[in-house]
C-alpha cells in the first residue's frame, strides 16, 4: 500500500488541463524514468505511446503485482487485463456487437434515450446537474439496452461505482466485488433465460464455448467502460465547450463540424488519462532508452494528447481541426476501446440534442465550485450544474 494519497502526476489536472509537472516531463523526453512515487517508466510522447500500445508482442497488459507482491483482483474475461491469444478470442466474441453497422442500428434507441433526458434535464429546473439528469442516465440506459441489463439495476451499479471512484475509501474493495457479483447474477439469470441483449446473444450463439466467469468479466468491463467513460466524456465535453464560448458558438453555427468536434473533445478531455500499465516481456530499446523485461510503463494518454509535440499540433480546443482524429483518447493497439463507436455516436447525439434544446446553455455555477474525480480510473466531474 502506498502511504500517502498523493496523486500521481499523470492523473492530476488543472481544471481540464495537464499539470505543469507533466508538461515538464513531456518536454524533457518522450519516455523517462517515472518520477518519485511511481514505478518504472512514464511515456508521454505521442509516437512512443502509440508504439508501446501497438506492441502486444513485447508488452503485456496483465497487471503487475501491487507493492508487497499482492496480485490485483482480476477476473477472467476482463478484456483489459489479458493478452493474446485469450484476449483475441474473447474480443472477437463481442466485437460483432460493436461494429459501425451495429451502432447505426442502435442510433434510434440512443436518440430516444437522449430526447427523454433532455426533457428530464429541462424539468429539473435551473441550475440542473447535467451529470445526474443527463449524462449518467443516458450512458447507463444505453448500456442496459445493449447488455440486456434490467434498467432497475442501474442505480445500484452507479452507487457501487461511486464508491470505487473514491480511491482510498475502505468501501472501495467491497464495492468492486459487489459490482462483479452483480454481473455474475446477470449471467446466471441469462443462462436460464437468454434474452435479446449481448449476454443472451453470446449464450445462445456460443453456449458452453464461453464460461460464466468470462461472461461476467466481459460484462463488467463493458459496463465499466461504457457507463462511466461515456458519461464523463459527455459531461466533460460539454464543460470544455462551455469554457470555450467561441468554439461553442462555432459549433452552433456549423453543425456539420460535429464529427470533428467529437474527436477534438475526446482528445481535449482525455477521460482515461493513463491506460492500464504495460509490462515489458523482453528488453525493449525504444526512444533512446532501454526498458528491461519486467519493468512497467505507464502510458500517459493525457500527455500524448495534450502536451506540445514536435508535430506542431497546438493544444488549444479547436473543433474544426482535422488532425485531432489522430488522438489516443480511445487507446491504440489490440486493446483499442471496444466501445469507441458507441461512445462517438452517443457523444454526437448528446451534444446535438443539448445544443438544439438549450440555445442559451451555460455553466450554472462558478468554475471554482466544480469538483473533479481524480482517483477513479476515469477522470470526471462530480456534478455539472448548467443553466440555459
Amino acid at each position: 500500500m502506498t502511504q500517502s494519497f498523493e496523486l500521481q502526476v499523470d492523473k492530476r489536472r488543472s481544471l481540464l488541463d495537464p499539470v505543469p509537472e507533466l508538461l515538464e516531463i513531456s518536454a524533457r523526453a518522450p519516455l523517462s524514468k517515472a518520477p518519485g512515487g511511481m514505478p518504472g517508466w512514464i511515456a508521454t510522447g505521442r509516437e512512443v505511446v502509440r508504439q508501446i500500445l501497438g506492441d502486444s508482442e513485447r508488452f503485456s497488459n496483465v497487471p503487475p503485482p501491487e507493492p508487497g507482491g499482492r496480485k490485483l483482483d482480476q477476473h477472467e474475461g476482463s478484456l483489459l487485463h489479458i493478452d493474446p491469444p485469450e484476449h483475441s478470442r474473447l474480443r472477437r466474441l463481442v466485437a460483432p456487437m460493436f461494429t459501425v453497422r451495429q451502432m447505426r442500428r442502435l442510433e434510434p434507441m440512443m436518440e430516444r434515450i437522449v430526447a427523454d433526458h433532455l426533457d428530464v434535464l429541462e424539468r429539473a429546473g435551473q441550475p440542473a446537474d447535467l451529470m445526474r439528469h443527463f449524462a449518467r442516465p443516458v450512458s447507463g440506459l444505453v448500456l442496459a439496452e445493449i447488455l440486456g441489463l434490467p434498467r432497475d439495476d442501474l442505480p445500484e451499479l452507479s452507487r457501487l461505482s461511486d464508491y470505487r471512484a473514491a480511491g482510498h475509501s475502505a468501501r472501495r474493495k467491497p464495492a468492486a466485488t459487489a459490482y462483479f457479483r452483480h454481473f455474475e447474477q446477470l449471467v446466471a439469470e441469462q443462462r436460464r433465460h437468454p434474452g435479446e441483449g449481448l449476454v443472451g446473444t453470446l449464450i445462445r450463439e456460443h453456449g458452453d464455448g464461453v464460461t460464466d466467469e468470462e461472461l461476467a468479466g466481459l460484462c463488467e468491463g463493458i459496463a465499466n467502460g461504457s457507463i462511466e467513460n461515456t458519461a464523463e466524456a459527455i459531461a466533460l465535453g460539454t464543460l470544455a465547450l462551455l469554457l470555450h464560448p467561441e468554439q461553442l458558438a462555432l459549433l452552433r453555427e456549423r453543425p456539420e463540424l460535429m464529427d470533428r468536434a467529437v474527436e477534438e473533445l475526446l482528445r481535449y478531455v482525455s477521460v482515461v488519462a493513463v491506460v492500464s500499465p504495460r509490462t515489458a516481456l523482453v528488453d525493449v530499446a525504444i526512444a533512446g532508452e532501454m526498458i528491461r523485461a519486467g519493468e512497467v510503463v505507464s502510458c500517459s494518454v493525457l500527455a500524448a494528447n495534450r502536451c506540445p509535440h514536435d508535430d506542431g499540433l497546438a493544444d488549444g480546443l479547436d473543433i474544426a481541426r482535422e488532425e485531432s482524429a489522430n488522438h489516443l483518447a480511445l487507446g491504440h493497439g489490440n486493446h483499442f476501446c471496444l466501445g469507441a463507436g458507441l461512445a462517438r455516436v452517443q457523444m454526437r447525439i448528446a451534444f446535438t440534442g443539448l445544443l438544439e434544446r438549450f440555445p442559451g446553455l451555460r455553466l450554472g455555477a462558478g468554475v471554482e465550485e466544480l469538483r473533479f474525480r481524480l482517483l477513479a480510473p476515469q477522470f470526471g466531474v462530480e456534478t455539472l450544474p448548467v443553466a440555459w
Partner: protein
Amino acid sequence: MTPVTGADGGAANIGIRVDRDRCAGSGVCALFEPRYFDQSEEDGLALPRVREAAPEALPVLRAAASRCPAGAITLVVPDTRESAAGDRAD
C-alpha cells in the same frame, strides 16, 4: 505524393489487405473510410470492400492504414509493401 506506376509505366492499382490475426475489430477503418472498408457481421473484423483501389485513393488509404489501431492494414503499392505506420517496432 509519390506517383504510383506499374511495370508498364501506367498507373497501377493499390492492393488492400487486412491481417485478420491482428485486426481488433475496432471499426475505425469502416467508420472513416466506409468506401473501402466494412466489418464482418460474424466476428466484427474488417473486410476490405475491394481488393484493389485506383492510385488516387492512396492518400486516404494511407491515412486509414496509419489510423488502424492494430496495424492490421497493409497496402500493396507496386514495388513497395506498406503497412500501418510504426506499430511494429520489429
